[in-house]
Every structure is written in C-alpha cells, then in structure tokens.
C-alpha cells in the first residue's frame, strides 16, 4: 500500500519521482523528461531570454510550474 502524501512529496522534489514510487513508469518517464527539458531551457537559455526580454522566458517559467503542480496532483490521485 503506497502513501498518497509520500507520492506527492516525491513529485515535489522532482516531477515523475512520485510516479516511480507508485509504479507508473511510463508516466514517470514523461514527467521526468518534460521537467528535464524545461530546466535545460531555463538554465542554458533562460538568462539569455531574460536579458533580451524575450517572452519565452516567462513561458518556460509558467510551464515549469504547471508540470510540477500537475505531477504532484497526478501522483497523489493515482496512488492506491
């Protein structure tokens, strides 16, 4: 029996980790890859976009927040 709060907390640490905990491996890969791509965009290009006032900087931030929240909610919901 898996714990919903533990699943949610693990997803807070990094999206997809909660899904690894509950055995939803496909979901885990999707969330880990998605968050990984967004963090890559943020760290490697984010400052440049911010400096040139490119709206994509804010899109990346919003997308990251969305992925984290969705992962937490989804892991919590799917835990049995």
């Amino acid at each position, binding site marked *: 029996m898996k714990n919903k709060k533990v699943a949610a907390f693990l997803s807070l640490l990094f999206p997809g*980790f909660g899904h*690894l905990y509950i055995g939803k491996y496909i979901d885990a890969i999707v969330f880990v890859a998605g968050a990984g791509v967004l*963090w890559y965009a943020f760290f490697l290009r984010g400052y440049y976009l911010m*400096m*040139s*006032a490119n709206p994509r900087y804010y899109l990346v931030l919003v997308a990251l927040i969305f992925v984290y929240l969705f992962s937490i909610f989804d892991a919590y919901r799917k835990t049995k």
Partner: protein
Amino acid sequence: MKKGLPAKFLFIPGGIIFLIIVWTISPQFLPNEAEYKKDQAYLAEVMNGKLPETPSPEVKLPVKGYIIAGGAGTCMVDAAAGIANFYEPDIDFDTFIFYANPTLIMAKRDKNERYGPGLSIMRAFKNFGYIPFRGATTPIHPPQNIVADFEPQNLIYFKDVKEELLFAKKLLSAGIVPIVGLQHDPFEDIEGGVFSSLVGYNKDGVWLNISPQSERYAPGKKYYLDEPIRYEPRFASYDLLMKYWTGEHQLLWAVKSGERKSEAEIYSENKKNIQEAPVTLQKSIEFLKNNGNVSDFTAASQTPEAAVLYRYFQAKGNLALANQYKELAKTYESLRQSESPGIVASDRQKMIEVLTTVYPHIFKVSTLWP
C-alpha cells in the same frame, strides 16, 4: 511483489536534485543584501567626487543620436556613438565604429569569447579611455562571455528601479549619459526591445534618444552606404519610461579614466582581426550548423561596419579595398533582416545563409589590408 520503487531510494536523489535547483535559482528571485552592500560601497568609492549628492531639478544634455536610415537592430550602436560624440566631438559615427572591433569575428578562443561578429560598443569606449559599467535591479549578472568588456566588479546591483533612476539622474547632473534597456520602443509600435540613451529629465519625464526605425525619418537614404543622420531626443513621461523599463532595468554608462588608444594601434588590431576572420568565420558557421547554443552566438548588424570601412579606405585612397567593402555592405544589405539577438534562436538557417554568403567577401578583404 509491490509495484513501484521504495520511497527511501527516491528521497535522496530527489532531495539532492531539489536542493541543487533551489540553490541555483534562488538568487534570481530573492534579494541579496550582501551583494547589494558590496556593489553600492564599490560604486560610491569608484564614483567618489564625480557625482552630486543630490541631482539637479532638471537636466537636458545636448546629445544627438544617430540613425542608420532604414536600419534595425543597431539601436545600441546608434545610442552609444551619439554619447561618444557628445563627450568628444571629434568622435563621429565612423570613428566610433572603427574603435569598436569592426573586423572581429569571434570563435570562442577563450572562455569569454563567443562565436560570431565581435563589434562591441563597450570595447569602443574602453579604447577611447573609458571604463564601462552596467547596472541592474538584480544581483544576477549576465554570463561573463556576454558582458566580456565589463570588469566583474563593474556590474552593479541596485535594489529597485527608483534607486537606479535616482542614480541615473545624478549621472546626468554630472554630464554622464547613460543608456537604458527598454522592452519596447515607447514612441513607435515596433516589436522588440530597444536601447536608448537617457539624455535628460524634468519633473514630468525624461528625454530619450531612440534611433527611429521608420523610413519616414530618412526618406531616400540607403541603409548600406549612406552616412547616418542625427536626430533630436524625444520626451517620454515617467509612466511611459516605467512601463517599458522593466525586467532587470539595464543601465549602462562609461566614465573617462585614461587616454585614448591611437588610430594606428586600433588599425593594427583591426588588421589582425580581419586576417584571422576567414578561419573564425568558418568556425562560426560550423558552430551554427552543429546547433550550437544560441547564447554563445552574437547576432549583430554587420552592414554599418562594412559601410564604415568602405568610407575609411575610400578616404585613404585605397579604392580596391574600399570597393570590396562596398560589395560586402551591399551583400549584407541584400540579406539583412531585423537582427535582434532573439531572432537567431528561430532563424539559425538565416544566419548560416548570411555568413556563408559573405564568406568570399571576408576572405577577399582579409588579404587586402595594407
């Protein structure tokens, strides 16, 4: 068998990743008191005696900007050249460009060098004997290879835009003209950010020199060869300034500290750079073809450099080389589009096309410098 990985195997790597992310990004979003105090103490020391305690009620300096007719993407050059001309009237637009690495093409030969055109307005100021500074309302500064001509200690953190605007007024009161980075032209509905010299203020607003981008300001002028024209600053309310001076509120300025390098010395540097340019240009093309990180590439408007060098060598009587630069300017112009840095990310192929097309011209001129 239970599905899923045990929590204890996930807490440690998850916790480490989480802490690394928080540690890395927190300076972007949290004030840094220690950094602020350090920067302000240094600023007070280095500007000691140069600025008034209280700015004048109003200031309007007779600074005229330059406009390259029909141009786009040259706002920083236009603003900076106008400031240099105000400081030292014998520095016209062409002289400014000549001192700004017009022939340099970088190829990441050291950690502070990116790929692509190396024209740098702050390098021009340094060559004229000035020290450049950059202010912002964030303790996070650009990577050193993006601000390569600034000493790290001259990247200054202001706590908020009010403090920074007060400092800008003190600069103007002392006759020092800053450049502000705006996220949009306050006077024309043109997409993209713009750099403008801030040349005055009163109780209602500020005077800005923004290179007008409409053709109506220079009818009949050809971008690629005609000399830039001068224009007067325009007035913007404080509301308008604050609406567009957002993000990290970039503020650039330069302070005279030493002697100007001689023209002969600058000529030697430019000659060395152009002789290396065929190799570095090829490396830049390969970098773009291999999907190199866009932040490691500079997208600059090369037509002014080519036109300036055309006029330079024509005045020297070297018509063969002058005509080569004329052809180079025409080629750049035929390929030109708005080249704000953000466009490279979505138009990598365009930059590859531009650089590949001008390569034969660069190779030719590299062999002709006397």
